[in-house]
């Protein structure tokens, strides 16, 4: 139930996937909005939430990677073609990389800013600054890197989501189902019935 098998994802992997996924996409929306808010008080607050959730993503992703390393990787479904597998794995690798690179570049923004605003994660833990150059130009560089990498990862995430929906509604296989239900392989038949299809 908790662990992956060679055919299915366990509960832990599923929770990591959805929790991190929702926070990550929420962070992209928050990041887009917070730089466009004109009210300084609200903006300050939104930046602090964005930093706190960014470190949450980074921390959860580290544990997720450890969990992934300690678990079986469920096989690709037989219904997937070679190109499809390559594309899916490429997207997964890019998304995993994004979960680390995007928060790290965000950390670099906070660390390089001459404002040197402390990161007080959820008002609980002070996160130290990275030992990098502090200047307006360094901050501008990291800000641009952070934003564009985030938007690039959003594009990949959208492709990932559309692919999952394609599998579920068009190909009517269990690609999405097995990321929703722990150890769904045994219930594959039932899942297929629930979708109203009988492939």
């Amino acid at each position, binding site marked *: 139930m908790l662990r992956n098998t060679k055919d299915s994802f366990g509960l832990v992997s599923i929770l990591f996937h959805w929790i991190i996924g929702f926070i990550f996409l929420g962070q992209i929306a928050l990041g887009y909005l917070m730089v466009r808010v004109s*009210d300084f008080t609200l903006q300050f607050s939104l930046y602090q939430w964005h930093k706190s959730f960014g470190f949450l993503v980074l921390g959860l992703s580290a544990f997720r990677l450890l969990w992934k390393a300690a678990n079986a990787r469920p096989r690709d479904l037989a219904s997937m073609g070679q190109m499809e597998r390559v594309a899916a794995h490429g997207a997964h690798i890019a998304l995993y990389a994004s979960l680390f690179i995007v928060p790290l570049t965000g950390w670099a923004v906070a660390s390089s800013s001459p404002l040197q*605003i402390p990161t007080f994660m959820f008002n609980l833990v*002070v996160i*130290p600054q990275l030992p990098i150059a502090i200047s307006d130009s360094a901050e501008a560089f990291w800000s641009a890197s952070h934003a564009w990498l985030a938007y690039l990862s959003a594009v990949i995430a959208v492709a990932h989501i559309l692919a999952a929906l394609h599998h579920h509604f068009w190909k009517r296989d269990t690609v999405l189902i097995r990321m929703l239900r722990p150890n769904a392989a045994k219930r594959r038949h039932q899942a297929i019935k629930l979708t109203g299809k009988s492939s």
Partner: protein
Amino acid sequence: MSTTSGLFSTVLRAGIAALLAASPVGAQADTLSEVAGRYNIQPSSRVAFTVTQVGGGGINGNFKKFSGVFSLNNSDISRSTINFTLYPESVSTGQARVESFLRSDAVFDSANFPTITFKSTQITQTSPDTAEVAGILTARGKSSPASFQANLSDHGKNSITFHVQGKVMRSRYGMDVGTPIYSNVVQFDMIIRGQRS
């Protein structure tokens, strides 16, 4: 501002102390009358502040523009008074973005509230050369009690200098943005120079 009232009480005390220590009774009265009077706060004064932040360090700055008067009462220090006005638009921190943030409606809202004022209500001598200056601080349209400790540093025939320190809770004036990352306590450290008017 509160600093100033502290200053004059300090001066009075110092005068008294000097009189008691070194002078015959008649001389004491002379010293007091020498220090007593009305003073204008000079632009050479310094109004600096610090707001600490979590993890160490903080924001240091000062206000370039201010004005005020204080009068030292030679018969009763507690009847001395100070009025001080600060122009938050003149805040300086060495970091333009921090300054524009401080001037904005997130903090001082200097466009709508161009002045911060302090009027003493009670000056209490605490030692031969120190006094506590209690008063009402008004900022962003909110008034709340605040108090400062004044220490007499120097005085001449027509001038007097006080070192004034005090802590102000910014949340009382609707300026609590950034807490708890930045402390709610603003620590003032001022050198108030008065010139007899």
